[in-house]
């Protein structure tokens, strides 16, 4: 993993250093893919790939004093939104079939119950209106801070916070009064 900071990699990439941009892709691809999956499902990889390519080609317009991550998410969000409509809603968001070692004490029933809980939560996220699903995907799937989330959404931090709060409220409502988790 390249130890240089994003800003250093961006500056190098602007000078045509493709390896520096590759390091940025490696660094950010996981959270960006998780976020894009929450928006565009199986179209996520195409959205992310196109997003990175557009980001590279737009580096000339990137303010060097700005943070790279929210700027990248802004571009990928746009790509993901563009693909959302072509991604059929029937293709619902899915969970991995886990091959993780389970706790020794976990019974098959425990594992199944946990999977079911996660799927219920994921279904509830998928059913959120777009503006709420997006803020959830940015914050929890993409791992952005509140400030970064607001920047991607081009709104004040307070607005992003209240939108997230509303999204969590909708999720709680969808999962039942006990939170069902």
């Amino acid at each position, binding site marked *: 993993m390249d130890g240089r900071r994003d800003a250093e990699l961006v500056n190098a990439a602007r000078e045509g250093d493709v390896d520096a941009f590759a390091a940025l892709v490696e660094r950010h*691809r996981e959270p960006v893919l*998780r976020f894009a999956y929450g928006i565009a499902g199986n179209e996520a990889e195409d959205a992310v790939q196109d997003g990175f390519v557009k980001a590279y080609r737009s580096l000339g317009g990137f303010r060097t004093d700005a943070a790279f991550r929210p700027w990248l998410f802004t571009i990928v969000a746009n790509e993901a939104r563009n693909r959302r409509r072509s991604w059929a809603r029937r293709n619902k968001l899915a969970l991995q079939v886990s091959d993780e070692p389970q706790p020794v004490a976990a019974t098959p029933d425990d594992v199944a119950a946990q999977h079911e809980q996660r799927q219920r939560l994921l279904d509830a996220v998928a059913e959120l209106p777009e503006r709420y699903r997006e803020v*959830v995907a940015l914050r929890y799937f993409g791992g952005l801070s509140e400030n970064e989330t607001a920047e991607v959404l081009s709104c004040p931090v307070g607005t992003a916070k209240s939108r997230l709060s509303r999204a969590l409220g909708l*999720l709680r409502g969808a999962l039942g009064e006990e939170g069902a988790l």
Partner: protein
Amino acid sequence: MIDLESALLDLAEHLDRPTGEGLTGAVVSRISTPAPAAGSSARTRMLLAIAAVVLVIVGAVLAIAPARNAVADWLGIGAVDIRRSEHPLPPGPSSLTVPGAPGTARDRAALRKLAAARRAVKFTIAMPTARLAGTLSGVEVDQRVPGGLVALRYTRFTLVEIAIDPAGPTIAKFIDPGVVVEPAVVGGAPGFWVTGAHDLLYIDRHGTTRIETVRRSGPVLVWAKGAVTYRVEGFRRRADAQRIADSVR
């Protein structure tokens, strides 16, 4: 019971998302290729062919280079394809038939039209909030663009908002060789300032470029945010366009 926020963070680790293992290689391969859209797609080839037809129609005797050479630059953003011609295109027809073209008649019922426009397009219409904007004088909606297009006319400029169609761009810009395209950022979103004259063509939902819609346009600031592409047209100075753009909410 598990805290909902913790559950969402846990969920993120268990999504059946693409692994992205080949992503870095694919991106590097694409960015290492110098001509991103040098005639590589059917739509590009079609656009270039249509551009050639336009030139013939207006009677210009210009040698059109092969597609690969004719496009010296390509910058796509949202609903708009921006392509550079090798030769300056002759002045287009004076009729402003392209969607979003500024009109001349002042519309006293602009606000009523705005309310109707809000119902007609599939996105939230944003408005410039800067004092510089002045009073809204006209509103036009064009629903040939999937999702809709709205043009808000002010005295000094026109703000056009275009729904981004996942199927591809809906407006093509052919810019003259001498025109500079400068990267721009509006509210954190990427965009471009096109410094001079260019031609606009409308691409319909079947991917056909409507040659009857060609017209000349002056400098324009274009950017994409969310599912909408915006353009501010009418200012000669980038700073004025940027002030309006930055105030669009």
